[in-house]
């Protein structure tokens, strides 16, 4: 009996921590999302039922933030898939000297995104930035230079490029693991049958990478929904509202305007989107493995 109970001692510290700092906040946030609670002025949260969620639909900022997040996704996602898959395929050829490139491609993964953001502000700066310098003086295309983070057309693209710089390595690792799991005999058999490289790629490589596509795909969508640091550090949501993304809007609502109730409802919308995606991921992988 004592031995039976002793097993709970092993999980107790972790469960305690997760209860106080994750599960309890999760429940509190849920409750707050049905209240009006300005942390600077109100004494207590005031219950307003679905008030916050109904307000979201008429909130121009929320609609803009949702739209901006989707715009970020539309640049980041195709870039992520094509870059990471392309690099993984090249690396998987195992050409001499290329294993040395893997650490270089993975290095951004460990670099704090906000510090990278500061570095990229410098790189993209209009007058002293190296990008404009290269475009103008090295490549001889001065018409391409611009004030990348200040102009409406390029601000979000710049943030997405920084996102790609940071996250491509991780996606590449997932694709590489998928590629290495494909049995070599499949390729040998295809070559014996006289298949050309395009056929081999579309008939063998791609179908066998389905699991990696699901993993990277869902992960890439979630990463876009959560985009935050670049916008916070590099553009502060600007110019105007062009880079005001969902996560940034939720954070500002909570910690600039102290509207905790309303912010909690935005946070829950983000959470629900991500949970649905995680569930789709889980379900797809399960059917895939059956």
């Amino acid at each position: 009996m004592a031995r039976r109970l002793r097993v709970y001692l092993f999980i107790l510290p972790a469960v305690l921590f997760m209860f106080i700092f994750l599960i309890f906040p999760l429940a509190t946030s849920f409750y707050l999302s049905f209240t009006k609670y300005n942390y600077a002025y109100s004494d207590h949260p005031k219950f307003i039922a679905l008030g916050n969620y109904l307000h979201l639909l008429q909130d121009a900022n929320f609609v803009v933030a949702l739209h901006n997040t989707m715009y970020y996704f539309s640049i980041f996602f195709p870039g992520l898939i094509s870059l990471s898959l392309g690099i993984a395929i090249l690396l998987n050829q195992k050409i001499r000297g290329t294993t040395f490139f893997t650490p270089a491609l993975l290095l951004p993964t460990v670099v704090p995104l906000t510090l990278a953001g500061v570095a990229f502000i410098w790189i993209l700066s209009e007058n002293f930035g190296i990008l404009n310098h290269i475009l103008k003086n090295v490549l001889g295309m001065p018409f391409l230079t611009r004030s990348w983070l200040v102009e409406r057309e390029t601000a979000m693209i710049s943030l997405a490029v920084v996102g790609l710089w940071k996250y491509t390595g991780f996606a590449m690792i997932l694709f590489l693991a998928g590629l290495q799991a494909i049995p070599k005999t499949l390729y040998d058999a295809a070559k014996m049958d006289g298949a050309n490289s395009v056929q081999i790629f579309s008939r063998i490589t791609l179908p066998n990478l389905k699991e990696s596509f699901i993993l990277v795909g869902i992960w890439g969508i979630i990463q876009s929904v959560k985009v935050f640091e670049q916008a916070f550090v590099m553009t502060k949501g600007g110019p105007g509202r062009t880079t005001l993304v969902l996560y940034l809007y939720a954070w500002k609502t909570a910690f600039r305007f102290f509207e905790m109730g309303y912010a909690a409802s935005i946070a829950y919308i983000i959470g629900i989107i991500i949970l649905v995606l995680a569930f789709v991921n889980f379900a797809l992988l399960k059917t895939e493995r059956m």
Partner: protein
Amino acid sequence: MRRKWLLKRHIRELASFTILFVLAFLFVSPLIWIFLTSLKEVKEIYHVPLMILPRKIVLTHYQDILTQASGFIVYFANSVKVTLGTLIFVLFFSSLSGYAIGRRSFVGKTIVLSFVLLLLALPYIIYVIPIYIMEDNLGLIDTNLGLILPYVALNLPLSIFIMRGAFRTLPREFEDAARIDGCNEFQVWHKVLLPLVIPSLAAVAIITFVAVWEEFMFARTLMPSTHAQTLAVGIPTLKEEAKSWAYGTLSAALTLSILPVAGIFLVMQKSFVKGLLEGAIKK
């Protein structure tokens, strides 16, 4: 015929190599650029047209941030304290519960496991609002402990998952032999099984290290004062607020802030990739 085939193969390999080389260079070039900037004199940094390589290497920017009463040393110390504090708790707690969940059966195991999965998926923004209110009431805002406590919790779900997987794959014999020798539960865990899961502990350690070193939202929210901030928050804030931090000093600070994670990554690359893969596949 064979020669032609070989030639074609060589050209293809050369093309692949070149593309990979260019991409790898592009990925590290922002870091190289920051490092080069940190070595230049101020007038060279703001010289038009730009000079890529420093004409004269100076270490004054490093001297400035390390000696002046700049925030850098404070931020660095905070990052180290918070990261190591979190790491110790996460390693200890995740290896304890990973053992219980991976090797023992008990009432409520499925519930614990499903909560771990759920908590793994949810975004931090949901947690940060109530935690801020809670810590404000407890007076934990602007303290290292106030950051370590939620960081331990936030990094536990993934770590528990990795450790559970590690313990689960160990053969039963070790455990049984130790039990016959009279080891109790705790001794079995720490004397017999723990040494066998060191690779996974290393993976947990580096994943947690990187996550805490770079975490921004909790640090920015719970540490509003300069004296308590970590590097990931302090340096962008300085850039934003005090324009006096020119890019020479800023680049030196960035270089020194990235160096510890980059160094650990280069040494423990295998463990890092292992942790990434296990986390991704189980998520």
